[in-house]
């Protein structure tokens, strides 16, 4: 479903110092995977995830989402691609503070133009899966960190994207909440068949995924 061939990415700092952040990456992610990009800090996990999520461009190589090449898209096309095909969960502060949990979960669906009834039903459905159904009317800042992360996952999954990209989703959570979040995401993967790709070096994430892609210094060293 997602295919990367010979992807290279450089960062430039100042005049001459460049960082070769992704070195000749070849990788395939199949539909329904529950996988992890793992490796030491600075190895390029976030960079790779951002490239797959069309958040960032690459310098050479190709990335395909299904049959579609996403490396050649314009800025605006990438924005729409992210909206329509991808779901994102970030480390923290994912939510819109002035909107209720329900509105946050329905946010992407709303942007995509789903009708209100459909949104309402779907929000209820994913909220139940993630066990936040009784928080729907609350504002994000009244929720615990673990609950907020679950709302972020619910938002990402609600519009049924092709893939969910989660960068260090457990980094700000304690062990109990991390385990709970991973269990629920796994359940989503199993029950709804959502493809999920993590970037993390958290042991709880490592324990629950089915595939680990290990990176070191910008290259895949183990799969």
């Amino acid at each position, binding site marked *: 479903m997602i295919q990367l061939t010979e992807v290279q990415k450089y960062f430039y700092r100042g005049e001459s110092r460049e960082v070769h952040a992704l070195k000749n990456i070849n990788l395939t992610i199949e539909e329904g995977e529950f996988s992890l990009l793992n490796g030491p800090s600075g190895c390029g996990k976030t960079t790779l995830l951002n490239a797959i999520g069309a*958040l960032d461009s690459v310098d050479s190589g190709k990335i395909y989402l299904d049959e579609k090449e996403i490396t050649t898209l314009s800025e605006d096309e990438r924005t729409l691609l992210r909206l329509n095909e991808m*779901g994102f969960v970030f*480390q923290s502060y994912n939510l819109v503070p002035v909107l209720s949990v329900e509105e946050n979960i329905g946010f992407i669906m*709303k942007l995509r133009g789903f009708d209100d009834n459909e949104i309402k039903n779907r929000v209820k459905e994913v909220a139940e899966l993630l066990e936040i159904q009784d928080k729907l009317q609350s504002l994000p800042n009244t929720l615990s960190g673990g609950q907020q992360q679950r709302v972020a996952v619910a938002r990402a999954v609600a519009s049924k994207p092709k893939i969910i990209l989660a960068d260090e989703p457990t980094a700000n959570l304690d062990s109990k909440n991390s385990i709970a979040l991973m269990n629920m995401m796994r359940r989503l993967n199993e029950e709804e068949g959502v493809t999920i790709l993590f970037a993390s070096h958290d042991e709880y994430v490592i324990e629950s995924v089915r595939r680990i892609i290990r990176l070191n210094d910008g290259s895949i060293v183990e799969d």
Partner: protein
Amino acid sequence: MFRLILKLAWKNAFLRLSRTLLVVIMIAVSMSMMLSIQGIYDGMTSNLIDKTKRSDCGEISLYNPHYRLNKNLDNVIKDAKTIEASLNKRPDVQAVVRRLSVDGLSATARKSAFSSVVGINLDEEIAFGRFDKFLVEGKLELGKRGVLIGKELAKTLKVHVGSKVIFSTQDSSGEINAMALKIRGIMQTSNVVLDRSALYVERRHLERFLGVSDTVATQIAIRTAYPTLQATLQKAYPQLSVMDFLELNPMLKQMQDMMSIFNSITFFIVILVVFIGILGVMYVSVLDRIREFGIMRAVGMEYKYIRREVLLEALFVGVVGYVVGAVLGLLSLVYLHHYGLNLSQFSEGLAAFGLDTVLYADISPIYFINTFLAILSASLFSVLLPLRKIKHLNPIEVIKAET
């Protein structure tokens, strides 16, 4: 979608309540002050204009073309009586007066002053411009020897109600003649020239004294609500010069222009205050939420929606400020319209310009419409800079800068 953006904008506009309220108060206070100043300025000008029209030239005055250069009895309007009668029949004319005026010298035993005697008909003048309202002392009556005198002239001559004045001038045959007059009342029109020099007498007596026929006049003044009347009358009476109020009072025209410049300046300053206020609050608010916007961009919200949200947010602040300011401004204008602004401490200076000591404000819907449009555009322009911040935002950088 629009509902969602509207909701985001509304909630965000009042998220930092005290910050927003501060800007709202800033807008409201400066705006209501501006409205009051504007109302007072306009009230001042229109009061002066109104009194000049009522006491002298109306909206339109007719003269013999030579009269304004050479004010002697050769240059009168010969058939004034018939003209007046036919003007009175026109539906677009509200009131007409015909006056006979002559310059000369008025004197008491000790003092003398250059002055003008104006022959009037009291009933006509009252209908024309509420002449009775200008009386400040004595009685409004003329009779055979009676005279009403301008307040400043009375001061110069040191005369009171009941005093006698001798007025001498050239009659129609070229002889110098004098008339003895008894002061019945003192008039204050706030029309500087008249207050300083006018003596009002019964027109019939002046005609007889000067030896002119009762059909002539030096001026015919007209009250009308029709701005096109001047052109019509000029066509009907090509032998006369038909002049409108502003042509006859270039000083007042200048004053009107100056007031509108003052008004524009205050207006501009207030709009600048509004602009800076909204710019400040929006800039800080956008910087506060830069991560939020980054996440929105990352999950695929298009820039145009974010722009719409920020714009609406600024509009909310501006419009709420406007509404509060309009209410405060209206209250203050209504007060100033009814009770006026009492400046009796400075009354000497004001009177010298023909102004009253209590200034009453005008109220016009135009003030509110103009301010609304200006605040609207100030709000819109004020988000340009904050929006640039969001437009050049790189979501990756913003998301990375967490923890």
